[in-house]
């Protein structure tokens, strides 16, 4: 069945360093991928998305990379700040469905 998973459940980085959060997906029919950020006690917030016909997309301090050959998605955060500390989820929309399926999540801990 469909599944979206993450390689690292916890990532600890120093303030100012770059962070890379990885995600593997298994549904070849997925054509749209999204990264969400969830701070403690809050609902998830949209960060950035990417379509399956792209392999890279950049936002403000964030870059998403998509490798369809190995079904891998990553989120790069430049110059990580304490405010970036949160759980990050990748999510996918598969084929013709309207269902947004979330992965397990990675906790990003930024050390001062």
């Amino acid at each position: 069945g469909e599944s979206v998973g993450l390689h690292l459940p916890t990532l600890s980085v120093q303030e100012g360093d770059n962070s890379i959060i990885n995600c593997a997906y298994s549904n070849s029919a997925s054509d749209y991928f999204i990264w969400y950020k969830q701070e403690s006690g809050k609902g998830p917030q949209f960060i950035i998305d990417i379509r399956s016909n792209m392999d890279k997309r950049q936002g403000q301090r964030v870059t998403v990379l998509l490798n369809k050959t190995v079904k891998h998605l990553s989120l790069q955060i430049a110059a990580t700040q304490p405010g970036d500390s949160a759980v990050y989820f990748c999510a996918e929309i598969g084929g013709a469905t309207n269902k947004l399926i979330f992965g397990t999540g990675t906790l990003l801990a930024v050390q001062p």
Partner: protein
Amino acid sequence: NAGVTQTPKFRILKIGQSMTLQCTQDMNHNYMYWYRQDPGMGLKLIYYSVGAGITDKGEVPNGYNVSRSTTEDFPLRLELAAPSQTSVYFCASSYPLGPPGTGELFFGEGSRLTVL
């Protein structure tokens, strides 16, 4: 705009009791969703709706029911509550997902439910 509003924020239920989690949005979104999030875990889709009168099952629909009589409201009903339904429930809404739009869901603040 208030966005997505969920009530109640906290609730304790006894096993076998029933209750309804309320969700309303004022963004005129056609799409609405219910997710549950167990501690330290990701979000699992319970039910979703693409418009008034239309609902469909997600990943974990058993033990829940929904209705969508208006664009604004999407209540989630728990029948015969069980300890396994202890979780944080998030309601969300959006425009149609994917290109040419985005995958942005707007989430409520969550409803924390404990079943004892």
